[in-house]
């Protein structure tokens, strides 16, 4: 009878992803290209906001976009129609992007001529929060119709983001969304998070958000 022995492993799961993500950040620093990871639930307004952002800053900064969806290429087509280089990643059932998938997307772009790449992550408030994409900053959108209780239900997403965009504020009047309660809940999870209120429909708040993005990008690539 063979004896059972114990082998020490002591390895973190996802460690591989963290290594790839760190390497990616080094590469972006060397290329002087800012990388932003944009997350939200499906339909909160990622693609529309990216298009608005492009409109606002494409004359100042050279931008590229990586679109991730479980299937379909409609989002990348919309971005390409705005005159911006876009890569569509089909995650084929995966509920999130990881750093090696982002790396593949970046390999399809000429980083030497780009100041900034925005990643539109898969629409999902759970899984993308757990996987480091290698981005320099993480931004999430919460849209007004989703409700002000989302930080209570999806705390990790709110904890890992540098910026929260409360979007579709043109719906505020018709809803019982409590902005004060939302802010309190978010800041209790993440006191350092920056919160902007936006509407891609009316254009409200887009300038302030774009100013933050411009500043973050120029600081990084300087």
């Amino acid at each position: 009878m063979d004896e059972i022995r114990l082998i020490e492993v002591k390895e973190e799961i996802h460690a591989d992803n963290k290594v790839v993500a760190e390497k990616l950040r080094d590469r972006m620093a060397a290329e002087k290209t800012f990388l932003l990871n944009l997350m939200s639930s499906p339909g909160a307004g990622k693609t529309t906001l990216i298009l608005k952002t492009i409109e606002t800053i494409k004359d100042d900064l050279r931008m590229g976009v990586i679109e991730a969806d479980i299937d379909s290429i409609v989002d990348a087509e919309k971005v390409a129609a705005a005159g911006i280089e876009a890569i569509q990643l089909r995650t084929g059932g995966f509920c999130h992007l990881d750093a090696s998938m982002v790396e593949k997307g970046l390999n399809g772009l000429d980083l030497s001529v780009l100041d900034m790449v925005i990643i539109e992550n898969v629409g999902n408030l759970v899984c993308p929060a757990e996987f480091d994409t290698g981005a320099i900053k993480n931004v999430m959108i919460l849209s007004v119709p989703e409700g002000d209780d989302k930080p209570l239900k999806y705390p990790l997403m709110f904890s890992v983001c540098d910026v929260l965009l409360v979007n579709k504020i043109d719906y505020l009047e018709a809803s019982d969304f409590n902005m004060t309660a939302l802010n309190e809940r978010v800041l209790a999870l993440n006191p350092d998070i920056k919160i902007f209120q936006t509407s891609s429909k009316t254009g409200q708040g887009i300038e302030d958000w774009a100013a933050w993005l411009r500043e973050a990008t120029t600081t990084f690539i300087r």
Partner: protein
Amino acid sequence: MHELPVTESILDIVLKNAKKNDVKKIVTIYLNVGELSDLEEEWMQKYFQYLSKGTLAETAQLSFIVDKNDLGKIQCPKCNEEKCTLKSGKEYYIKNMEVI
């Protein structure tokens, strides 16, 4: 939520370590789990059985040890009212494994 990719990573790591240590068969894999992890243990065992077919780990059991030493609760227990950022509690770690 993403039990499948996590289970794939576990299998990769244990097989790599088995190779290094000249193992014939993996019997039990001990995992340290952060208290806030939402991974379903039952599903992970099922996925593991499926993914490990034909490997040294085919009949291995996953054993989960919940780590309570982390910050623990969603709100940091140390500073009730004060604002703070949650740094850990979701991690997953392969501690060791019993092998033949």
